[in-house]
C-alpha cells in the first residue's frame, strides 16, 4: 500500500518518507516489547496480590460465617479499606446468599447477585475480580468475592503511551532534518538526468548529453543514457526510411483483405444456397434447442411451412399421441409420451455437454399425422467453448428401414429354417418336427393357431400337427383314441388350397366363395392363410394358419412359402432317419443273432467300434473297457497281425483262417479285412464263425473218406490182381482149345469143332474183358503226370493213328477253331479222345459222316468245355447214364463193330482223375455230343492259397 502510495511522488519525497518509516519502525520495535513485558508483569503482580488477599480475608471470615456472625464478618471486610483499589467485597454463605459486604466510599454496591464464576482472578474491562470458596475442614461453608478497580493500571498505560508518542515525534523530527540533507547526494544527479530526458522527449532532440559527476550506479546510468541517446539517434534515421515502406505495405494488405472479405461473403451465400437446396433436411437451433432456421427439405418432409417450425423444439416433431402408429416404412409400433420426453432429454444433454456429434434414429411426425423414420445427425456449434446452438441434418430413412425390415424378416425365416433343422436332429419323431414347423409358422406370422395336414393314399387328409388352441377347440369325442384328426375329405378354404396347389389368404374367411363354414366347436375364423406343401414336386399337404390380428400380408404368405421347402426337407429327412434307424437296428439284430463273433475296430485308435451279442455275451467282451488288444488279448500293444499284415499289406485282401479256442472248446473260422469308411478312415472288420459242428462233421467225413479210399484201393487191387491172375489160366484155356482144334480137329465131328471154336472165341472175349477191366482199374491207380499240353497236337496224333479206318468209313474230321493249351496228363487225354472218336466212328449209319472236335467257353465254368460231336445214331435219353457204366453195351455185340464196353467208363475215370466232368447231350438219329471239362491243378492251388 505504501509502495502504491509512493509510486507517483518525487524521488525526494520517497527518500524522505522511507527514512521516516524506518525510524518509526525501529522505535516501535524497541518500545513494544518493553511496554508489553511491563504490562504483563504488572498485571500478574496485581492478580497474584488480589488472589492472596482474597484467600486471607476468606480464611479470616470462616468462624464468623460459621456462626452467622455478620457484624464480625463486616469488620473483617472493613479491613479492606486500606486497599485503595478494592471497590467492593462480599461474603456469601454456603447457599450463595449475601452474608456480609464492603463497599468503597463513593462506589455503588454491587447490584444484584454476584455473578457465578469459578474460583480465581479474572480481568474485566475496568476492574479485576477475585472469587474464592471458603473452606473449613474440607467443607465449603461459603465464598468471598472482591472487585478490584484498575484505575491505577490504566493511568500506568496512559503514561507509557504518552512517552512512546513523544519519542516517536522527536525521532521523526530528527530523521526529517537529516534526510533532507542527505537525500541530495542521490537525488541531485537524478533530477539533472530527468531534466535532460524531459528536454529530449519534448524537443525530440537526440543530440543532447547528460553530464556525469560520479562513478557510482548513477554515473553508469548516465553513461548508459548517453549511449542510448546515440543509438536512438541512429535508429530514428532508419525508422524514418522503414515507415515510408510500411505505408505502402499497409495499403497493399488492405486491398487483399477487402478481396478476401468479398470471397467470404460469396462463400457464405453459396453455403446458404446449399442449405436451402439440400435434399436432406437441415435445421439450425439455438443453444436451448429451439429451431431458428429450417430449410425447404424439412418443410417438404414434415409438411410444416418454415415459419411454422421456427420457434419450436425438435422434440415437438416426435410423435407423442398414445397409440399404435404405422410408419411410412410399414413398421408398426406403440408410442407413449416417453418417446418425446426421451428425445427432448437426449437433445438437452447433448447441448449441455457440448458433444461434437450426435447421431440417432427416431421417428418424426408429418403434419398430416404420418410417421416418418429418420436419422438425425446433430452437430454442436460453438465459439471458443461458448455454445451458440446446433445444426441437425435429418434424413428420411423410410427406404432403408424398409430394407431393414425386409432383412429382419428374412433373418427370422432363416432362423426358423435353422430351428427346424436343429429340431430335426434333436427330436424323437417326425411329429415333433411337424409340430415345430407349425409353432415356428405361427410365431412368424403371429397366428393364433394353425395345423399341418398330409394327404394319405386314399386322397383324404390327415393332420400331423395341430396347435393347442386349435386342438382343444376341435376335439371330437369319438376320436379320443388318436391325437390327430384323420381322413378329412378335402373341402372349404383349405380344400381349395390343396385342389389348386396355390397359397390362399383371406381377411374375411366366412365371405370367401370357397368357404364351407367351420365345424361345430371350431373357434371362429377371423383371418386365414394356407400354403400347399410339395415334396419332390408331388403334393404333400398344407400348412393352415389362422387369426392373425389385422390380417395376413403378402409377405406372410411369401415367408411360409419359403419355409415350406425346408419344412418338407426336415420332415422327410426325419422320416428317412427314423427308417434308417429302424433298418440299422434290424441289421444289428442280424449281427446279434448270428452264431459268430463280429466286431469292428477303428484302426487308428484300436477302439472297438462295434461288437455283436455273441462277443458281449458268449465271449464276455466289453468294448468300453479299453482298446481291442487290451480287452480281447490282454496285450499292452496292438497285435503283429494288425500292424504288420492287415494294415501294412493289401488293404483289399481278406484274411481267413481257422482257430481253435481251448478255453471255449470251439472252432472258429475267422475272416478279417479292412473296411474303408466313406470319410476315408479305415476300420478292421472281423467275423469269427463258430464252425465247431462243421469241424466235427469234417473229421467224420475225413474218416469216411479214408475208409472209402482203403476199400477202393482194396477193390482196385482186387480187380487188378483178379484180372492179372485170371489172364494166365485163361491164356491156357485158349491155347489148349487151339491145340485141340489143330491136333485133334480131324478126329472130332463138326459139332465138336464148332464147340471148340466157340470156346476159343469166348476165352478171347473174356481176355478182352479182363484187359478192359485191367485198364480201367489201372486208370484208378496210376499217378498222373501233368504238364502243359497243346490239345491241337494231341488230337492230330490221335486222328493220325485212325486215318486208315476214317478213310475207309468216309468220315470227315472237323476242328472249327484251334484248341487250347491246358495242364493235363497227355497220354490219358489221348486215350480220352481216341475212345470218344472211335465211338463216334462206330455208331454212325449216315451217308455223309462227320466228327467235330472243339471247345466252348461257358460263363458258369472257369475252364474250357471240350466236346466231341458226331451226326451218328444218337443215344436215347434213358440210356445216357448207363453208357458210363463198365461193360454196359447198348447194342448187340457184333453190331457197329463190337467193343468191350469199357471205353466210356475208362474215359470217365480219366476225366474224374483230372477233377473234371463228362456228360452227354444227344438226340436219337441226329447225333451225339460228349462234353467234358478238365479242371486241372491250377484251380486247386488258388483255393489252397485262401487258407
Amino acid at each position: 500500500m505504501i509502495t502504491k502510495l509512493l509510486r507517483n511522488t518525487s524521488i525526494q519525497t520517497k527518500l524522505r518518507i522511507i527514512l521516516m518509516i524506518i525510524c518509526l519502525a525501529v522505535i516501535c520495535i524497541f518500545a513494544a516489547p518493553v511496554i508489553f513485558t511491563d504490562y504483563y508483569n504488572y498485571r500478574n503482580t496485581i492478580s497474584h496480590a488480589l488472589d492472596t488477599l482474597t484467600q486471607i480475608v476468606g480464611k479470616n471470615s470462616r468462624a464468623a460465617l460459621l456462626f452467622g456472625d455478620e457484624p464480625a464478618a463486616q469488620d473483617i471486610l472493613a479491613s479492606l479499606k486500606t486497599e485503595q483499589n478494592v471497590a467492593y467485597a462480599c461474603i456469601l454463605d454456603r447457599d450463595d446468599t449475601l452474608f456480609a459486604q464492603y463497599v468503597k466510599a463513593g462506589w455503588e454496591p454491587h447490584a444484584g447477585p454476584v455473578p457465578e464464576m469459578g474460583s480465581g482472578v479474572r480481568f474485566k474491562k475496568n476492574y479485576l475480580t477475585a472469587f474464592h470458596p471458603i473452606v473449613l475442614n474440607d467443607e465449603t461453608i461459603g465464598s468471598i468475592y472482591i472487585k478490584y478497580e484498575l484505575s491505577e493500571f490504566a493511568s500506568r498505560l496512559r503514561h507509557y503511551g504518552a512517552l512512546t508518542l513523544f519519542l516517536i515525534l522527536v525521532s521523526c523530527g530528527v530523521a526529517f532534518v537529516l534526510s533532507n540533507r542527505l537525500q541530495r547526494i542521490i537525488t541531485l544527479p537524478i533530477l539533472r538526468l530527468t531534466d535532460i530526458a524531459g528536454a529530449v522527449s519534448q524537443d525530440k532532440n537526440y543530440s543532447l548529453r547528460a553530464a556525469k559527476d560520479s562513478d557510482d550506479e548513477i554515473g553508469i546510468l548516465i553513461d548508459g543514457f548517453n549511449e542510448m541517446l546515440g543509438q536512438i539517434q541512429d535508429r530514428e534515421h532508419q525508422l524514418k526510411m522503414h515507415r515510408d515502406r510500411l505505408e505502402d505495405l499497409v495499403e497493399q494488405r488492405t486491398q487483399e483483405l477487402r478481396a478476401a472479405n468479398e470471397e467470404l461473403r460469396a462463400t457464405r451465400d453459396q453455403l446458404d444456397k446449399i442449405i436451402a437446396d439440400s435434399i436432406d433436411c437441415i435445421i439450425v437451433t439455438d443453444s436451448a434447442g429451439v429451431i431458428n432456421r429450417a430449410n425447404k427439405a424439412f418443410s417438404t418432409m414434415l409438411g410444416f411451412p418454415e415459419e411454422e417450425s421456427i420457434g419450436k423444439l425438435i422434440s415437438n416433431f416426435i410423435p407423442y399421441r398414445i397409440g399404435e402408429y404405422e410408419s411410412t416404412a410399414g413398421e408398426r409400433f406403440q408410442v407413449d409420451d416417453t418417446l418425446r420426453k426421451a428425445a427432448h432429454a437426449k437433445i438437452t444433454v447433448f447441448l449441455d455437454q457440448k458433444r461434437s456429434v450426435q447421431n440417432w434414429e427416431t421417428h418424426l411426425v408429418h403434419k398430416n399425422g404420418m410417421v416418418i423414420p429418420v436419422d438425425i445427425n446433430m452437430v454442436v456449434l460453438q465459439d471458443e467453448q461458448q455454445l451458440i446452438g446446433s445444426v441437425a441434418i435429418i434424413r428420411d430413412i423410410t427406404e432403408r428401414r424398409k430394407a431393414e425390415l425386409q432383412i429382419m424378416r428374412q433373418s427370422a425365416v432363416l432362423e426358423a429354417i435353422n430351428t427346424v433343422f436343429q429340431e430335426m436332429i434333436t427330436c424323437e419323431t417326425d411329429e415333433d418336427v411337424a409340430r415345430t414347423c407349425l409353432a415356428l409358422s405361427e410365431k412368424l406370422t403371429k397366428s393364433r393357431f394353425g395345423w399341418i395336414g398330409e394327404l394319405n393314399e386314399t386322397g383324404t387328409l390327415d393332420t400331423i400337427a395341430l396347435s393347442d388352441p386349435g386342438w382343444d377347440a376341435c376335439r371330437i369325442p369319438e376320436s379320443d383314441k388318436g391325437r390327430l384328426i384323420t381322413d378329412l375329405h378335402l373341402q372349404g378354404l383349405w380344400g381349395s388350397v390343396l385342389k389348386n396347389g396355390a397359397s390362399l389368404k383371406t381377411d374375411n374367411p366366412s365371405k370367401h366363395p370357397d368357404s364351407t363354414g367351420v365345424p361345430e366347436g371350431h373357434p371362429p375364423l377371423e383371418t386365414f392363410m394356407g400354403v400347399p406343401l410339395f415334396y419332390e414336386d408331388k403334393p404333400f399337404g398344407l400348412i393352415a394358419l389362422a387369426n392373425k390380428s389385422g390380417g395376413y400380408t403378402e409377405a406372410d404368405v411369401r415367408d411360409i412359402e419359403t419355409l415350406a421347402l425346408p419344412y418338407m426337407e426336415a420332415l422327410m429327412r426325419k422320416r428317412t432317419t427314423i427308417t434308417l434307424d429302424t433298418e440299422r437296428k434290424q441289421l444289428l439284430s442280424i449281427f446279434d443273432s448270428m452264431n459268430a463273433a463280429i466286431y469292428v475296430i477303428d484302426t487308428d485308435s484300436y477302439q472297438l467300434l462295434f461288437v455283436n451279442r455273441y462277443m458281449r455275451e458268449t465271449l464276455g467282451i466289453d468294448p468300453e473297457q479299453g482298446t481291442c488288444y487290451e480287452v480281447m488279448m490282454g496285450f499292452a500293444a496292438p497285435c503283429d497281425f494288425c500292424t504288420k499284415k492287415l494294415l501294412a499289406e493289401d488293404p483289399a485282401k481278406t484274411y481267413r483262417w481257422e482257430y481253435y479256442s481251448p478255453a471255449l472248446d470251439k472252432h472258429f473260422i475267422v475272416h478279417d479285412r479292412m473296411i474303408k469308411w466313406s470319410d476315408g478312415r479305415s476300420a478292421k472288420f472281423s467275423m469269427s464263425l463258430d464252425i465247431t459242428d462243421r469241424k466235427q462233421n469234417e473229421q467224420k467225413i475225413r474218416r469216411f473218406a479214408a475208409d472209402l479210399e482203403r476199400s477202393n484201393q482194396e477193390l482196385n487191387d482186387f480187380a487188378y490182381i483178379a484180372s492179372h491172375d485170371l489172364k494166365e489160366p485163361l491164356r491156357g484155356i485158349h491155347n489148349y482149345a487151339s491145340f485141340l482144334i489143330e491136333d485133334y480137329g480131324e478126329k472130332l465131328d463138326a459139332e465138336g469143332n464148332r464147340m471148340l471154336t466157340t470156346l476159343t472165341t469166348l476165352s478171347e472175349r473174356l481176355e478182352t474183358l479182363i484187359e478192359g477191366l485191367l485198364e480201367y482199374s489201372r486208370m484208378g491207380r496210376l499217378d498222373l503226370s501233368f504238364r502243359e499240353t497243346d490239345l491241337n497236337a494231341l488230337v492230330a496224333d490221335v486222328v493220325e493213328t485212325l486215318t486208315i479206318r476214317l478213310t475207309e468209313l468216309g468220315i470227315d474230321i472237323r476242328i472249327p477253331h484251334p484248341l487250347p493249351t491246358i495242364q493235363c496228363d497227355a497220354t490219358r487225354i489221348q486215350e480220352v479222345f481216341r475212345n470218344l472218336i472211335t465211338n463216334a466212328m462206330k455208331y454212325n449209319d449216315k451217308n455223309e459222316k462227320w466228327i467235330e472236335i472243339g471247345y466252348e467257353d461257358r460263363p458258369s465254368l472257369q475252364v474250357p468245355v471240350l466236346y466231341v460231336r458226331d451226326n451218328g445214331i444218337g443215344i436215347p435219353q434213358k440210356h445216357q447214364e448207363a453208357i458210363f457204366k463198365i461193360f454196359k453195351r447198348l447194342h448187340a455185340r457184333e453190331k457197329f463193330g463190337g467193343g468191350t464196353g469199357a471205353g466210356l467208363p475208362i474215359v470217365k475215370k480219366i476225366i474224374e482223375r483230372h477233377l473234371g466232368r463228362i456228360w452227354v447231350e444227344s438226340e436219337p438219329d441226329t447225333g451225339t455230343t460228349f462234353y467234358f471239362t478238365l479242371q486241372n491243378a491250377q484251380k486247386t492251388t488258388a483255393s489252397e492259397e485262401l487258407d
Partner: protein
Amino acid sequence: MTHTHNRHLNRTQSALCIVLLFLCLDVSFDNAYAQSAKNIEYRAKAAFIYNFLKFISYPESAFPSPHSPIIITIGSTPDIVSAFNTLKGKKIKGRPLIIEQYTTDARLKKSHVVFFSSEDEALLQKALPALQTENILTIGETDRCKKAGGIIHFYPEGTRLRFEINITAAERARLKISSELLRLAKITR
C-alpha cells in the same frame, strides 16, 4: 453445569433452613410453643457446640488414639437429648462424635465436652469443679455455671444467641481456642 443445578436445588432447601434458623434463634417465641421452641433452641446450641469443636484443639493426651471419638456428655432432658441426637454420626477432624447422657462422675471425666443445661444443672453442678483441671470443654447456659468455672457460656443478645469464653478456664483445661472463634466471642477471664 451439574454443579449449578445442585446449587440451585440447595437454594430452595436452604431458604427453608434459614427460616428455621431464625425461628430457632428467636428464644422469646410464643409460649404456646414453648416446648418445641425449647427444642429448637437446643438444636441451635448443639450446632454451636459442634462448630466450637472445629476451632478448639485438644492436647494429644486427651485421646487414646488419633481416631478415638469425641465424647459429649449431656443431661437427660428429652429436648436436649433429641437436639443433640442430630449430631450423631458427625465427625470432627476425623473423630466421630459420641453423645452420652450423664451416668456416673467417673464416666463424666472421660468426656471431652460436657454441656450443663438449665434443666439438669443442679445434678451436674456438683461435678463441675472436679472437671476444671481435665481436658474437658465445659459449656453452660446459666450464670451459675459461668461462675462455677465453665469455659463457654451461652447468652442471648436481642434475638441472637451469643457466647462468651473464659480464657482462664480454657487455659486451665489446656484447650487451645482459635482466634477466629475468640473474635466472635465475648472474652472473660
